[in-house]
């Protein structure tokens, strides 16, 4: 017993006072990309960025702006586009805050990223101080799952925000989906969603759950969960950093700055 107490003392206090104190991320962490379509004019290697992207997240003829756009919902953060761009029109800023409320907000055309907004008032009043989530992995590679699970460890200590992952959808206020939704998990996700009582929230974590990620276009998957559940929060990344996920969850509850 004495060993346990000594170990406990030596291991120390590890929980970060987030969000008042901000996490330090490694220098090579890419984070939020920023684009400047104005720099694309007369580009000598026009199309190199598009060709460098393995998942078609970049276009030079965006239907709205007509110029460069980058879809954060597809982006795998491999940074090959930035490496291919001779003009510096695409650069990664190291900012871990990426989560958005609208799918459309994830398409960057040079505007600042519109981060996630709080839930509508009636659901916010219910969930602001207590949100119980059921997680469904539907074709996920276990990276998003692990970095969601890690929020329960004492570094992040998700429980202090009143957010908890529960075992049954019957106990849940919402469903957090990872993976591109394999055909073989469609029914599993549908049933889990149906079993969660209304009102409820749906959260898509990772490029796969938002757009299919590397599996976009595969007939064995569903290009993400948006066609199956009404998503309230999109957390981009492959896999998103745990701080990105936590920041998104807190913003959804209107506590992004205060915790």
């Amino acid at each position, binding site marked *: 017993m004495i060993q346990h107490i000594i170990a406990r003392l*030596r291991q120390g206090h590890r929980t970060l006072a987030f969000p008042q104190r901000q996490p330090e991320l*490694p220098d090579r962490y890419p984070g939020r990309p920023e684009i400047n379509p104005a720099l694309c004019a007369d580009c000598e290697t026009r199309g190199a960025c598009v060709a460098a992207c393995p998942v078609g997240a970049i276009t030079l003829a965006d239907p709205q702006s007509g110029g460069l756009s980058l879809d954060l919902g597809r982006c795998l953060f491999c940074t090959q586009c930035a490496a291919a761009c001779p003009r510096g029109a695409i650069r990664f800023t190291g900012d871990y805050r990426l989560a958005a409320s609208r799918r459309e907000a994830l398409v960057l055309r040079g505007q600042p990223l519109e981060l996630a907004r709080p839930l509508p008032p009636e659901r916010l009043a219910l969930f602001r101080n207590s949100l119980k989530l059921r997680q469904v992995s539907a074709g996920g590679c276990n990276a998003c799952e692990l970095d969601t699970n890690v929020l329960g460890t004492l570094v992040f200590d998700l429980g202090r925000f009143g957010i908890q992952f529960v075992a049954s959808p019957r106990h849940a206020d919402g469903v957090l989906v990872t993976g591109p939704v*394999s055909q073989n998990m469609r029914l599993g996700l549908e049933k889990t969603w149906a079993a969660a009582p209304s009102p409820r929230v749906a959260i898509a974590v990772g490029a796969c759950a938002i757009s299919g990620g590397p599996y976009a276009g595969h007939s064995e998957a569903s290009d993400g969960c948006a066609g199956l559940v009404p998503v309230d929060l999109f957390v981009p990344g492959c896999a998103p950093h745990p701080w990105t996920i936590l920041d998104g969850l807190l913003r959804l509850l209107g506590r992004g700055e205060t915790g």
Partner: protein
Amino acid sequence: MRNAQAIPIRSIPLLPAEEFCVEVLEAVLHEARLSALFCAPVDGELRLFAILAEDRLGVLHALSAPAGQAYPSLTPDCPQAHLFEREIWETWGVTPLGHPWLKPVRFPARDPLGREVLGPEIGQARFMEALGEGGHEVAVGPVHAGIIEPGHFRFLCHGEDVLHLEISLGYQHRGIERALTGGPDPRFLQYMQTLAGDTTIGHATAACQNLEALSGCDVPAGALVFRAIALELERLANHAGDLGALAMDVGFLPTSSFLGRIRGDFLNMTAKLCGSRFGRGLVKPGGTGFDLGQPRAEAVRAHLAQVFPQCMEAVELLWSTPSVVSRFERTGSVSRVDALALGLVGVAARACDVEIDVRQDFPVGAFAFSHIPVAVSQTGDVAARAFVRHMELLHSEKFLTEHLTHLPACANTCGFQAGVGNLAPNSLAVSLVEGWRGEICHVALTDATGRFAAYKVVDPSFHNWAGLAMALRNQQISDFPICNKSFSLSYCGHDL
């Protein structure tokens, strides 16, 4: 052939199916292991391929036979073929005659050519039944009670005792092998990094070794060492996480919470090297996506020196707490004979006194120059699997400290990336990597134009799920969580 070597397909013996089966059975009798068994099209004809690993000699053998419509099943005499043969039957419709339990593996909706198939729906199979008085079945999943991938488990019980656990997966199937055919395409590396996201370095290394073997590319020494460092960091993170999860499942919270945090520290070391906690973008064909200079290596080494004693303290608490040890010991035992018959790999095999480790037996890259001792244990139970992880943490830390301190001197001049040219046509390459779960086997076959005619992935979980089923025999359902954690297998790596 050797690990990470390419050979022309025409140099592979092409035997009649019956002779092929005899050869494979003979080899397995003489201590070879079936690393892979699969079908692939060669010149418009479907062929069976067997990749046999002779661990003691460090030699791989490839054999082939025309697949035809059916061939005599290997499984009755060679249980380690059982899942491979089910896969061949499900994917290509080639029947292994006399297979005792021919059931679906992944319930795919498409065949390898992309055509829709009318197989059974997921979860619909002739499952085993527990009949008679006191016999009953308990089915759980696909959706489980935690943040975990989906799979279906059926406990066949007599009273409190589990007679057998039937495991039916396929829920994570996303068609990777089908998508790889005709490649490598721009998504190749992304597929490899997400075959099993917790084994990004292991699978990406195996894949890149194949491309390098097929294109005759020499990877700079600095990159080889960088890859090995990343592989061992991946092992540290996952072993620490698994030991923490085992502690959690026996209700021992100190170790569980300490190791939960420490696992994150190991992941952050990988992130220091490449920006991603899972090592995305670190391993690239021809080398690594980043350089590794002495200041960065020193920063990681210093972090490791600070965290590792805390990790050991947390792990040693397990062994000094009698209630934990008594829960681990004699739970979920697998005999050495069963481990060999089922062809278990990695931690699960070494815990049954089967001394195999790709880093020792088929060393390539940095492991050819730096020996890592193989950790084994004898009892084959949860305690043994935990103990092997404990030993491997120690060995990996030693390797890391040494290599982070002494980076190859040439790294500054020869760089971290060599060009990868066109792949040799009509060739086969086999690449083995000792991932943290065990042997990762990738087999690439090229066609006349140097594109992939087939790309076969064997995650260690593919061999080891049967080990978990064996471990549950004569246990109780309440033993399942710690047995499951002690194997810690991948669903997506199995389902592909």
